[in-house]
């Protein structure tokens, strides 16, 4: 393995994967991998040292790629495939349409990775990508035919959380179905959407059909979860059994896609607000990040160093991340900002990137 060059920042963009390394003052661009190819998601696996990314080829299908030298060079990894008899709906064969997110398994199982896909499936590898299998317990959940596409044609899985205390407890979030939990390693799953309210179904409190945009938890206390949802922001303090709304009635903290949770402090999280699902861009032309430090009772606007006018960015669900005091986000307008003080003030990392799909810190 190549010598580590310090913390990295991985940008998955429409035109490739950009890898930066942390310098004393700012970030240095080290590599631009897969130039020209859309990268829905990239992350660094701290357990193995590998860097993984998904590729959304316009022509050639969905691919997986792995680097063992911190993003300098990549090798193809055979992508997950739906079983021959898998159907999205009766009579409609399931084929892989999007590799939306990748997540490491438990620390004690370094060969285990999860992949969330469209159409709505969870795949797992137990051998570091040599083979993938569909998590049948979720695919065969009786509610699956009630799942809907959320902004994409078919439902998709974009959030995957493996409990650091218990490797057989996994939560996923599906647009649009909601949050599901397994406590037996994937054999059986239960919806965890009590307390959520949607504004687009006949029953606002339906068990299935919610649209979590992204779900994250406090790593030190995984019973505390945060959810940026299509219809607001929710928090759970009982391991997703129940959710409570924490969005503002009149303020900016309501609609958006990403949410970042402090891994240590269970009361602190960040969002990047946007103007309603009807417009989906920065509120009032000013780009800001919102932070709560009291579990969502109040939100503070963080805009120092961010554009106060003529900004119409939207930040996707995987494009906000925290590591220590560093916080970074990127927009589909190609603007990337970072903060070294947890959002109190911001620096420009670059303003002419391709549309940004994911922003992730890595070792």
């Amino acid at each position, binding site marked *: 393995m190549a010598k580590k060059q310090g913390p990295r920042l991985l940008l998955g963009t429409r035109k490739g994967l950009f890898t930066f390394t942390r310098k004393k003052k700012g970030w240095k661009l080290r590599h631009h991998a897969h130039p020209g190819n859309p990268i829905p998601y990239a992350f660094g696996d701290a357990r193995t040292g590998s860097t993984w990314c998904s590729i959304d080829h316009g022509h050639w299908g969905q691919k997986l790629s792995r680097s063992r030298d911190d993003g300098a060079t990549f090798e193809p990894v055979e992508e997950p495939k739906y079983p021959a008899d898998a159907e999205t709906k009766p009579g409609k*064969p399931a084929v*892989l349409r999007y590799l939306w997110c990748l997540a490491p398994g438990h620390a004690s199982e370094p060969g285990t990775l999860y992949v969330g896909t469209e159409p709505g499936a969870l795949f797992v590898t137990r051998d570091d990508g040599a083979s993938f299998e569909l998590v049948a317990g979720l695919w065969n959940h009786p509610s699956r035919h009630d799942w809907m596409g959320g902004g994409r044609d078919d439902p998709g899985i974009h959030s995957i959380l493996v409990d650091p205390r218990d490797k057989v407890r996994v939560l996923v979030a599906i647009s649009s179905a909601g949050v599901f939990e397994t406590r037996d390693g994937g054999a059986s799953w239960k919806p965890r959407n009590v307390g959520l309210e949607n504004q687009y179904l006949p029953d606002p409190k339906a068990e299935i059909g919610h649209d979590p945009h992204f779900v994250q938890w406090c790593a030190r206390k995984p019973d505390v979860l945060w959810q940026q949802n299509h219809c607001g922001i929710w928090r759970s303090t009982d391991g997703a059994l129940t959710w409570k709304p924490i969005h503002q009635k009149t303020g900016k903290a309501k609609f958006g896609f990403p949410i970042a949770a402090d891994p240590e402090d269970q009361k602190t999280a960040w969002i990047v607000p946007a103007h309603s699902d009807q417009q989906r861009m920065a509120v009032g032309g000013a780009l800001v990040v919102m932070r709560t430090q009291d579990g969502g009772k109040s939100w503070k606007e963080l805009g120092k160093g961010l554009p106060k006018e003529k900004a119409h960015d939207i930040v996707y669900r995987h494009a906000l991340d925290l590591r220590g005091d560093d916080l970074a986000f990127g927009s589909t307008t190609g603007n990337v900002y970072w903060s070294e003080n947890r959002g109190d003030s911001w620096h420009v990392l670059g303003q002419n990137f391709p549309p940004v799909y994911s922003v992730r810190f890595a070792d």
Partner: protein
Amino acid sequence: MAQVEFTPHLARYFPSLRESAVEAGNVAELVAALERAHPGLAAYLIDERGRLRQHVNVFVDGRPVRDRERLLDALAAGSRVYVAQALSGG
């Protein structure tokens, strides 16, 4: 033997890909033979159900394949096959 040629875009992912003669009775057999010679290539051309990807085209003697689902278009000795990518996006 059919003579098969590829869009240069594929050479980026399969540097050893060259115009070549392939023993195959139809396009599906041709794709299978190409996969044996270039592992991974088939997944660039067809999905996991064996269907031609939406933005990929295969021409046999100058005409696009008719059977995009099963690729059963017949190849004659001396057929010329061209694997193309559709033009799309920006």
